[in-house]
């Protein structure tokens, strides 16, 4: 496929929502189990890193360490939720459960199916954010004025990582191979995107690299700005970056999946 092939605009219909509904219904079956991780995980990190490590790293750029990492934990959760949902999750549904095959025999197209999967992945990110924002809010670690905006933003950040996950699901030869992008891309992002320390302590080339190629950097920036209640131009830049790169990746991921599945 040439470049135009990867950027061909998909024809998505409103029926994509049916796929979203299908995944939601499965999620709701284990609702209690599904709510636990986003509730528990940030607390563990906050206690270990914030209050434990925070004893030694008293503050970063004038803010207490625990306040510095709290928004980053939301950003990381946004990344993990949709990336895993649309990499391992979508791969299992596609390859092992043959769910996509069953759906494309109905009036839905493969474009609709993948769009529905991406929307669902983004929804998972948003669900996680909506649990974490109030929990972290209760600890008094975020400025409540703009923090609720983190929730809708989590949806768009989620779409971006859903699309990244879907691209890997589309090209992976088998499920084990998804471990490589996790190891080489997701884990470095978890560590080097201004999550646990500001990226300006890194060498300049690495900073440029992070800004250009590690989407989590922008998600962390935006969520941190909203959490601190700092509304400025860098916030706008981050949001626009996420929207543009997200849109492009959605288109690419759908075309990659079509290449794999339409035979």
């Amino acid at each position, binding site marked *: 496929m040439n470049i135009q092939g990867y950027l061909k605009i998909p024809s998505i219909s409103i029926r994509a929502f049916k796929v979203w509904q299908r995944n939601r*219904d499965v999620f709701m*079956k284990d609702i209690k189990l599904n709510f636990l991780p986003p509730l528990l995980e940030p607390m563990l990190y906050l206690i270990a890193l914030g209050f434990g490590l925070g004893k030694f790293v008293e503050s970063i750029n004038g803010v207490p360490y625990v306040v510095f990492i709290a928004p980053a934990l939301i950003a990381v959760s946004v990344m993990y939720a949709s990336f895993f949902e649309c990499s391992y999750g979508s791969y299992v549904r596609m390859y092992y*459960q043959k769910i996509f095959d*069953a759906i494309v025999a*109905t009036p839905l*197209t493969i474009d609709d199916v993948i769009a529905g999967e991406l929307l669902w992945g983004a929804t998972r990110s948003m669900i996680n954010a909506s649990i974490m924002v109030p929990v972290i809010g209760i600890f008094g670690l975020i400025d409540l004025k703009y923090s609720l905006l983190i929730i809708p933003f989590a949806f768009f950040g989620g779409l971006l990582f859903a699309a990244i996950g879907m691209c890997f699901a589309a090209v992976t030869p088998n499920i084990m191979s998804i471990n490589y992008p996790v190891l080489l891309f997701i884990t470095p992002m978890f560590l080097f995107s201004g999550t646990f320390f500001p990226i300006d302590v890194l060498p300049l080339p690495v900073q440029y690299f992070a800004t250009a190629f590690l989407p989590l950097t922008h998600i962390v920036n935006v969520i941190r700005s909203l959490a601190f209640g700092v509304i400025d131009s860098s916030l706008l830049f981050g949001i626009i970056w996420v929207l543009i790169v997200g849109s492009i990746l959605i288109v690419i991921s759908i075309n990659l999946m079509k290449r794999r599945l339409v035979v």
Partner: protein
Amino acid sequence: MVSAVIAKDLHKYFKDQLAVKNISFSIEEGETFGFLGPNGAGKTTTMRMIQCVSPISRGKLEIMGMDTTKYHREIKSFMGVVPQENNLDGDFTVYENLLVYSRYFDIPRGEADKRIDELLDFVHLLEKRDVMTESLSGGMKRRLVLARALINRPRILILDEPTVGLDPQARHMIWEKLRSLKRQGVTIVITSHYLDEVEKLCDRLVVMDYGKILVQGTPGGVIERFIGSNIIEAENDPAILECLKQKDASYEIMGDIVHIYAANTAEISEYLLMECSFPKITARPATLEDVFLKLTGRRLRE
């Protein structure tokens, strides 16, 4: 009247491999139409093109007068599909499977509930309504896939080996259901390796091999054309063959038995008994299986 399916010079390539080579056929509305052929003949590939899930490589394919390349959503909305491989949604119960599937067709909830009850009754799965699909037996899964294919009240039903792995009771049950659908005017396209099944159900059929159509016709017509109405089976014995050669009879060696094709079975059996004194010969009506083996040979397909 438009035909339910019209294929003209249809081709399908998988990369460089030509899986369907220039086939043409037409299926009329209300007809039950069979596709036969050995493993790898191209039956599933053809079904998937008719279902609009696999794009055609060359030629023309129209369903109810609509081009498959343009109107796939419309076509799929009035089509029901039983795929060769079961693909039930393992995350859901029997009832939920049908409900979730009904949503893909935009069937309102109340109507869907009504249809689900009817369909579960139709395939005798009412008792399994709230069971997860993994815990169904193979035959129950197959019946559920059939029920799922009927949720949108299809005008065309595509069945790719619907009765594979079913016990005789379940096969008879499915045949009965298919006949009742046929009476309601549903066009049925079926592939199967059970040739008795095809013979019983189909109005017309094609035999495919290596991606090509070898013959088309009614089951009776095809048998008559290639075998004649009856077949005589005798042991494969040099003396018999010698005897048959003298009589100039048409026969074929099938391993340790010889099939003798004849229009007048009585005459030839008498001749064989009198002149050649064979102890063991049997005459029986010719079947599709005889045609199938004659056309596609006895060799296994890898």
